[in-house]
Structure formats: structure tokens, C-alpha cells
């Protein structure tokens, strides 16, 4: 259960979004929408705890959050298998055997990650989510560079593995994921009006 109350966020001292209230129940996904620059990335980073909100609270079970951005931290000098095994070790999990099917990585298992195409690399990045076994996922445009088939694979993983086992996902995306049961939140109305001031700058305004 993820609960966000009176949330306000800023980027480099500039207010970005405010007045956010929402909650996502276990097993549900929330899709964030909004034009470029509205603050989706900033919101996800703040929810994941990488930066402080300027107001409000975000609660979810401790040690259950995980964040995935564009840059998926794949080491080009390690093989796909080694990359995933590392994240398994960090989170104290084994790499599930099924993961190779979930993300159609069987053939790429022993390739160095540096020799993958853009979409293949992305699939490895997403497979990390299946390895770390976190319940609350914050995903920033997860399907960039993926072809239609891979998007389906990913949606299927989310639905059948992650959400089905009581997981939560908050996803920022510009395309249609085909995750019809998920609620959608348009961020446009929450954009902070220009006159709002944040902690760090209000002193100067």
C-alpha cells in the first residue's frame, strides 16, 4: 500500500508539482501522464527517496521501494547473466530461472551487455526488477526503445508476476502500455503555479 499525502516536489530549488494526493493498493498499478517537463521524473525520484519532498509525506512498507530510470546501470563489460546476478546478490536474492523467459533473454544470457542493441539492453534493465524482488516499483519510461513484442512481455511480467503477487507499480510513460486495469493520473493540474516558492528559494524571492 502506497500512500501519498499533500505531496510537493521541487527541482533545483524550483517548485514543480504540489498538492498531490493518491494511494495505490497492493496489486495495483498507477500510470503517471503529463507533458514533457511537467515533473514525472522528479516525482518518481522523490517517491523513491532520492530527494526530499518540499512538503507532504509518502509512505510505503520500508525497504520495499525500487527505482528504475532510463539509465539502467548495466555494466557493458559484464555478461547479461553476471549483471543480473550482481543485483540478486545485492538484494540477497537468487536470480529466478524463469526470468530468462519473462524477458526473452535466453539467447542473450552470455553476451556482454555492451554488445546488445538499445532494446535488448533495456530488456536487461527491466529484468533487474524481476531479480530484486521489491514490492513497490517506481518506473520512469520503462518501455523506451522496446518493440511491440517486448512491451507486451513487460506488461505481462508486471501483471502476472509483480502485481499478481501483491506488488505496486508507479509508472511514468508517454505510450500506451496496454495495462488497462491500471489507474491513470494526469499530472497537468498539479503543476505548481509560477508564484509558488520553495524552501530553498523563498528566502530570495
Amino acid at each position: 500500500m502506497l500512500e501519498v499525502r499533500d505531496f510537493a516536489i521541487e527541482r533545483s530549488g524550483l517548485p514543480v508539482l504540489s498538492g498531490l494526493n493518491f494511494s495505490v493498493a497492493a496489486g495495483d498499478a498507477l500510470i503517471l501522464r503529463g507533458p514533457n517537463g511537467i515533473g514525472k521524473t522528479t516525482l518518481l525520484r522523490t517517491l523513491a527517496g532520492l530527494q526530499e519532498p518540499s512538503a507532504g509525506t509518502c509512505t510505503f512498507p520500508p525497504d520495499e521501494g525500487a527505482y528504475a530510470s532510463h539509465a539502467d546501470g548495466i555494466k557493458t563489460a559484464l555478461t547479461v547473466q553476471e549483471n543480473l546476478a550482481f543485483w540478486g546478490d545485492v538484494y540477497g536474492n537468487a536470480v529466478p530461472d524463469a526470468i530468462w523467459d519473462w524477458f526473452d533473454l535466453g539467447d542473450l544470457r552470455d553476451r556482454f551487455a555492451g554488445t546488445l542493441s538499445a532494446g535488448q539492453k533495456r530488456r536487461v534493465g527491466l529484468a533487474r526488477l524481476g531479480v530484486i524482488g521489491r514490492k513497490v516499483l517506481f518506473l520512469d519510461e520503462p518501455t523506451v526503445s522496446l518493440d511491440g513484442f517486448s512491451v507486451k512481455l513487460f506488461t505481462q511480467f508486471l501483471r502476472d508476476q509483480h502485481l499478481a503477487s501483491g506488488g505496486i507499480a508507479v509508472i511514468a510513460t508517454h505510450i500506451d502500455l496496454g495495462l488497462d486495469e491500471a489507474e491513470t493520473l494526469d499530472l497537468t493540474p498539479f503543476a505548481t503555479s509560477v508564484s509558488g516558492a520553495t524552501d530553498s528559494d523563498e528566502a530570495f524571492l
Partner: protein
Amino acid sequence: MSLWEYANPKKFMGWTGPILPWAFGAAGVCLVTGLIWGFFFTPDDYRQGSTVKIIYLHVPAALMAINAWIMMLVASLIWLIRRHHVSALAAKAAAPVGITMTLIALMTGAIWGQPMWGTYWAWDPRLTSFLILFLFYLGYMALWAAIDDPDTAADLTSVLCMVGSVFALLSRYAVNFWNQGLHQGASLSLDKEENVADVFFFPLLVAIAGFVLLFFALVLLRTRTEIRSRRVRALQLREGRR
């Protein structure tokens, strides 16, 4: 009303504006008096000849070089603990003044060294530790300059200032251990016997007061500039938004 209120940028601009000219004025008066007194109206030292006149620049600058760093350390701590923006900006503003003082101390020292020790530079501990201090200032300023986000820059430079201070002390001990010096010890102690003669001492005091006041005035002026630039930045960012 707590004392901290004066550190609010608006308040700060308010109360510093009027005293700024006075600070510069007082600094100018003290500096001119001290230096003219020292340069024109003091006798030569029996051992050092006229080079003793360099003391009126060298010693105040050396004192302020160290004090500026200490002030930056205190300001950094205040920023880290209480997050007063003016405090971080004052630390940033002090660094270029501090490095100038360090440079003056180094260069007058070097010039003094030629007649006294026969060399512009020797790896004397006092001199060496000033050189290290110069490097710390350089690094600190470079870190400020390299980071776009002002709060991040303030945080990082504050940590650097703290860690750097520990290592600066360690360096001081290390260079003392490493080389025996040529430089004289402190003679500005309260213990009267070791003190320089009064003829040199009083103009020196006035010059020191001048340097202190100049430092104060410059830090005020520069802090005001930094506050303005933060405000410009905030306004510009705001305009950049749709």
C-alpha cells in the same frame, strides 16, 4: 526575535546596505593610516634594514588568510546545521578574499625572503603550510564553480571545508616534522617581552585593524552580490517555466 533573523536574506540586505560604506570607509582609513605610518614614519630595523617595513603588509595578510578560512569553516558548519542560506553564501564570498590574503602573505614573504635568506622560496614549514592553504582555497573555489545547483554546491563545499580543515591541521604538523624552519616564531603574543618594539608594533596594529575591516567589508559586499545572484537565478528559473 532570535539573532538568526538577521541571517534572512532580505533582512541581511536591509541591515548590511547602510553599514557597507562605513565598513569600507573605516577599512580605508585604517589601511592608509597604518601603511603610511609604517612606510614613512618608522625607523629601519638594525638587522633587517628597511625590509622590516614589509611587516605591515605581511603579518596582517597572513593573519587574515588563516582567519578567513576559520570564518569559512564556521559559516559552513552553520549552513550544515541550521541551513541559513546567507551563511553558505558568506563562506563562498569569503574564499576569494581569503585567497587574495594568502597570495599577499606568500608574495610579500617571498620578496622578503630574498634579502633575508638569500632565496625567494625555502621549504620552511610556515611557508609550506601557507602554500598548502593556498591549494585548499583553490580547491574550495573550484568546487563552488563546478557545480550548478547552489544548494548542492553549498553542501559539498561545506563538507570539503570541514574535511579540509582536519587535513590542513595535519599538514601543519607534518611540515613541522619534515623540515626545521627559517621563519621567525610568533612575536605578536600578549607576553610583552617577546614583542617587537613599540615603534613597529603600533602601526602594525593599525594595519591589522585595516585588513580586518577590509575583509569584513569585502565579505559583506560579496555576500550581497551572491544573494542578488541567487535571486536573479530564482527569477530566471521561474521565467523559464511554462
